[in-house]
Every structure is written in structure tokens, then in C-alpha cells.
């Protein structure tokens, strides 16, 4: 079996600065792997270790995603190979455009049986790349997956929805979006970190992926929210009477 895991590389939100006009400046932010994609990578790596499958991570984004540390980070987590399209023509893609770029790379990787996506990206959390990708590939898909078992030309998954739990069998090839609960991302071993730089990486330019569809969503504005006005009164329980003052404030609000 060949497993591909879709990974978004985006600015570290710890480094995003709110400017004076409440815009978000990510220009100084380091690229990092989107949080829940780490769980998807872990799920892919564990499934591959179970089944002897080969794993490829696939990334598409602006030129800034081509970061040597981030690439090694991905490859230190039990993933065999990386395919990456890093091109400013691929900046600010919506879910549909992202899925199209990824679908082109899945098709070019040849022989992929199972695509695994994370629960949602750290920035948009739209939870739409998995279904857009499934539609682009013409494959079935399921989300909310908490466990995967490989069968003969199938996978059987457990999934948790809002009010129910299911076990479903999908014929391969298929797309799965995994819940963060599926696996805790590993702390990569030192040996795996040292070996990561030696693993195969295939780089693509936007032109290799066919013509990108026009944006399906037009972004009007992104700004930092106005902070709620809070009193920020701090009482110290170690000081006489301050605990009582806190309780009095609490009683006043009830």
C-alpha cells in the first residue's frame, strides 16, 4: 500500500504580530507544520509501520514553505519521502485550489492508495481540503476518523461524529481526514532527525501542477479581533481580604 499524507506548512502563529491598524503581520513568522497535520503524519506513519506501506508527505504552498528544517521535521516522523510544490503562484490558495494542487501531485506520485488529511488547518480550519481533494481525484472520503485498519483493497475506519460512533469500510483508493485523537504526534528520535536529510524530496513548481482554478472564495479582510474590554482586576489570595473581595465580585455577577 502507498499512503500519502497531506501537510500544510504555514506561519507559526506564535510569531504573528498584530500591527497598529489591527492587521496580522506574518512576515517574520517561521514556517511550521500545521498542528493537526502532525497527528495525520503520525497516523500515516503508524499505519505504514503496521502494514509495511510506503509513505509520502505532500505539501503545496508559497515559496516560503520550502524550508529545510520544516522538510526534515516532516521526514523525521516516520515518513519515507516528500513531494513539495513551493511557488509563490501557490500563495493564499483556498481549499479548492489547494486540493487541486495536491491532487496533481497525488496523481504524479502514482500508485497512491490512501490519502490522509489532518482535521483542519491551523489558519482557516475549513475542513474542506479533504473533500475537495476526494472530488478532484474521484475517490470516496470520510472525516472524523479515529482509527484505521487496512484490509484487502479496503480500509476500515472508526470515526466519531457529533453524537455517534461508526465503523465504515471504504474501498481503496480513498481519502480520510483524521481526528486529532487518532494519534499523539511523536517526539522524533535523534536518529530519525539525522536520517531525515537523506530522504528523497521531489520539488514541483506551480507549472508542473496544471492550471490552477480561479479562487472560489474571495477574502475581504483579515484583522485581529477587537479585544473585549475587561477590568483585569487581580486579587492575591495570599493577601488578607483579597479572596473575600474576589468572592464578592463573583456574587455580584450572579
Amino acid at each position, binding site marked *: 500500500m502507498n499512503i500519502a499524507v497531506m501537510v500544510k506548512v504555514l506561519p507559526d502563529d506564535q510569531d504573528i504580530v498584530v500591527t497598529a491598524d489591527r492587521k496580522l503581520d506574518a512576515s517574520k513568522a517561521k514556517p511550521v507544520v500545521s498542528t493537526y497535520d502532525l497527528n495525520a503524519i503520525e497516523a500515516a506513519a503508524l499505519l505504514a509501520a503496521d502494514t509495511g506501506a510506503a509513505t509520502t508527505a505532500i505539501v503545496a504552498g508559497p515559496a516560503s514553505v520550502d524550508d529545510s*528544517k520544516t522538510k*526534515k521535521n516532516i521526514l523525521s516522523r516516520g515518513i519515507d519521502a516528500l513531494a513539495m510544490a513551493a511557488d509563490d503562484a501557490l500563495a493564499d490558495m483556498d481549499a479548492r485550489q489547494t486540493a487541486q494542487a495536491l491532487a496533481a501531485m497525488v496523481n504524479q506520485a502514482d500508485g497512491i492508495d490512501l490519502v490522509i488529511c489532518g482535521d483542519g488547518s491551523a489558519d482557516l480550519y475549513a475542513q474542506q481540503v479533504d473533500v475537495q481533494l476526494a472530488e478532484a481525484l474521484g475517490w470516496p472520503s470520510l472525516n472524523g476518523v479515529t482509527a484505521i485498519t487496512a484490509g484487502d483493497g479496503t480500509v476500515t475506519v472508526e470515526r466519531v461524529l457529533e453524537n455517534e460512533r461508526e465503523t465504515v469500510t471504504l474501498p481503496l483508493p480513498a481519502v480520510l481526514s483524521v481526528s486529532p485523537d487518532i494519534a499523539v504526534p511523536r517526539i522524533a*528520535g*535523534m536518529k530519525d532527525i539525522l536520517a531525515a536529510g537523506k530522504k528523497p524530496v521531489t520539488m514541483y513548481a506551480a507549472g508542473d501542477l496544471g492550471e490552477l482554478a480561479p479562487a472560489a472564495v474571495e477574502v475581504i479582510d483579515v484583522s485581529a479581533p477587537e479585544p473585549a474590554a475587561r477590568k483585569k482586576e487581580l486579587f492575591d489570595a495570599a493577601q488578607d481580604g483579597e479572596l473575600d473581595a474576589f468572592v464578592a465580585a463573583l456574587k455580584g455577577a450572579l
Partner: protein
Amino acid sequence: MDFKITDEQELMLDNLREFCAREITEERIQKWYKDRRVEPEVCKAYLDAGFGYLFLPEEYGGIPSDAVTLALVVEELMRCTGATMSFMSYGLAMFDLAEFGSPEQVKMGMEAYQKTGEQCFSLALSEPGAGSDNMSMTATVHWNDDGTCVLNGTKTMVSHAETAPFIMFIGKDEDPSHDNKSMSMFLIPKDAEGVKMAPLHKIGQTITNFDEIYFDNVVVPQDMLLGKKGEGFKQLMKNFELERIMLAAHSLGLAQAALEDAARYAAQRMTFGKPLYMHQLIQEKLTDMETTVQNMRNLLYKTAWEFDQGMSVRLDSALCKRYLSSMCTKVASDAMQIFGGIGYTTECRIGRIWEDCRGDSFAGGTEEIMVHIAGRQVVKKYAADLL
């Protein structure tokens, strides 16, 4: 000059921070300081994540590494935890054993290390009458004709004595007199007959247990000899320079933790209607602390780099050990001053950091012994023609 660290080193440090965030909570640290040990499960997790295999020979599952990487890891571990996490000494002990031990001894040590992730042996070196002055030791090894040896003596300030399954004992062959340079090392089980220990209570670094060990006619087979008969002292000195570099990294990490705690406190604490850091006396302290910590780091990294290049670090490792171990206490002390009275309580970790830093002045050779080593080297460096 290149101060950039590699992707691999950055990833290791990222992973180390994640490890600390998951496994080493402040509550746990406080418990470990009370218990005089780190829970074996956490030691094991640290080893299994690979950190504990750095620098060990590959044939024993080790990961080729260098002193710079090891120093970065030690520094970050102390910075993240603000505690004397002695994991790195566990690995260094194994490194020593791999160098001098017979294949059987290394295998035995490695099995013990891999089982719990804890240090596999304690080093019984210092004596009540012989600290840095190792030649004054009076512990003896008597060689019998029947293939056994008898070990006698009192060893003190032995770190990890209660938790390590083995003891590395060093004593003088037959004759305890000062001039006898023939010493032998043994790797013996902690529970060998005639071995007794009693805890010593340090004021800081209590996360590492510390004991006096009494060897009363301990009879051991001669194949417990570690390395060569009579060459114990030479062996002992072999890895001291690397040890000094790692102790300095320990000092640096604690100083960095103290500095960060102080800066964060100064940013939030309000006095006389403004944040503490807006007072110039506090700004001066923070400025000097930052300069000191940067100096500490530069000297450490340079020394570690020289070590990796195969250059002699006889002088620089001693300078490094002396400078960093004294400066970390200064930085921690200034940090405590910024905290004010609360810094002198157990409400925040700055007191613990200060206590631990103070201990670095003694660990692995006192600051004065470092002068003893370095002073003559300085003259050699600049006035060799006059000697």
C-alpha cells in the same frame, strides 16, 4: 565565524522542548527534588526519545554527535525546566564506561541503562580527605592470589549512589601512601557485601541523590576491574574536559532560566505605579545579566567547538568551567534580587535555581582547582620561551 545552528540541532531542541512540556511539569520537578531522584519512567522516556544516546558509540545503539550538540541539549534542558536534570550525566557515564569497560562490562552497563534510563553507575571518587586532590585518596585495592580483590575505604559526595545499580570504585593498589600513583578502577554491584551508604543532604541540586559510601573488606572477583590495572587515575582524567564543558552548559541553562524568569517578572510586577523594568536599577541588572549570559554562551560554544575540532581544550575547558559556574550564581542571585522577597521563598523557582547554581562551583572540580589547571596554562600560552 558562524553562529548558526544546524536544522538537525534546531529540530532536536524543538523536540526537547516538546519532551519537557509533556513530561517535566513543575509539580513533577518539585516532587523529584523531594524524592532525591527523577521517576524512572521519565528517565526511560528521555533515553527512548534518543537524547540519552547522543555521543555513545554506535555499536551500543549510540548516536554519533559532537560536544556542541550535547552542550546545546544540556543548556536547553536546564533552561526549560529551571532544574538540575541530570539526564546528560547518565549518558556521559555510559560514554566513560564504553571507553574503559570490557565488552561484558559495557553490555552489563548498557542493559542497566536501557532498562530504566537512569545512570548505570555512581562514581565513588572523592574521599573525606581527598576531594580535588585525588592523589591523597586512601581507599585501597588489595590483590589476592585467588583471583579476588579486597576493596577498602570511605568515599563521599557520590552522586546517584542510591539509584545507580553499579558503583565505579577507584582505589590505590595495595599502598594508600600519597606517592603511590598506581590506582585501579572497579565496576561493582551496589549491593556487594561490605558496601554501606548513608545519605548526604545538599542544600541544592537535591534532585540527584548524594551519599557517603563505606567499603569494608569488599571482596570482588578481579574481572570486575575496569580498564587496566594501575591506570585508574589516567582513565579518570581522560574525559574530564568533556565533563567540564557539560557542567558549564548546565550552568548556562540555569542562568538563562533565571534571566528569563527575572525579565518576565520585571515586565509584569508593578511598583511605584510602573512596571518594575521601567526602573533604571532593574534595567542595569537585566543588562548586565544579559551581557554575562551572552559571554558565558560564547565561551562555552567556542570551547565545545574547539573540542569537536580536535583542538586542545585543556585551558579553555578550565576557563569555561570556572567562569560559567561562578557567573551562573551571580546571574541567579541578581534574578532573585529582581524578584525581591518573593524570590527568597519557595513560591517561585528562582530560589531553587540559585541553590542549584551555587553547587556548580564545586561539582566536577572546584573553581579554585580550575585556576590551578588554567593558571599555569596561561603562562605556557604566552611565555613558553621563559619557562
